[in-house]
């Protein structure tokens, strides 16, 4: 991806968010990162609704989405994105504490690009994100109208 690609992150754990940002930076990615704590905000942003920030046309986006074990919000966001003819081109990486096979099947069926279970160790967390970042640096992404 190029340096104009915007990385969208939904993550409500501040420690994890910091580790994700650090890991990406250590992978050499200095892209703009937009954080969404509330799941409604990310949908408003992508579907250009509401009063909050909205996405820009002709921009490349990538989404790192948390799918909490105790909420179906994350899965619904993935579903809405992948049902939209334009937004479905955004690669969605699930980064979650949910290791249930049922959720893994569901997210892959809906069209997530990758499903990653968060490690418990802080050091492993950063390493995983760094390796993810190194991979992302060698892929092509397409812009959203």
């Amino acid at each position, binding site marked *: 991806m190029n340096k104009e690609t915007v990385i969208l992150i939904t993550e409500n754990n501040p420690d994890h968010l910091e580790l994700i940002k650090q890991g990406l930076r250590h992978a050499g990615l200095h892209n703009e990162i937009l954080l969404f704590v509330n799941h409604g905000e990310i949908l408003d942003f992508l579907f250009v609704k509401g009063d909050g920030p909205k996405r820009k046309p002709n921009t490349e986006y990538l989404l790192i989405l948390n799918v909490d074990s105790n909420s179906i919000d994350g899965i619904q966001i993935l579903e809405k994105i992948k049902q939209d*003819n334009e937004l*479905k*081109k955004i*690669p969605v990486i699930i980064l979650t504490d949910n*290791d249930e*096979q049922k959720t*893994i*099947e569901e997210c*892959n*069926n809906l*069209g997530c*690009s*990758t*499903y*990653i*279970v*968060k*490690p418990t160790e802080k050091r*492993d967390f950063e390493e*995983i994100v760094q*390796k*993810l970042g*190194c*991979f992302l*640096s*060698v*892929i*092509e*992404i*397409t812009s959203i109208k």
Partner: protein
Amino acid sequence: MKKNVVILIAEDNAGHFQLIKKNLWLSCVDSDIILFKDGQEVLDFLFKADTGVYLDDNKGYILLLDIRMPKVNGIEVLKKIKEDKELRKIPVIMLTTTSETNMVKQCYELGCSYYMVKPVNYHLFMQAVQNLGEFLSLEGMRLPFIKKGCA
């Protein structure tokens, strides 16, 4: 990535296949790798045509898919996989020399997970595949199981 993962590689260029295999291995990928020399071979395997090798319900699969291949090209293969309600769960990573913007767009529209352009430079190619390998070996990566009855 858990141990029981199979990496499917559809690649008609023998040199590229060796380079991909070697660099995945260098980045500690210890999964089984199955090579398909054209698009038809990989479709025969996935859709259980009479090939003698079959999808295993207890394994997770990832497909690295070239675009320009004889018989059936990568776009057709991607389309057929993503139209199938079970096979669509397989993550497909395009790995190709084609960097045309329209091709990238089309593949994401059809549902590929990622689109990777093979660098022309040998060392950059090796590095890119090693990055891919490290990513595929991530401890936390989880794959769906594909339950494919008779086609």
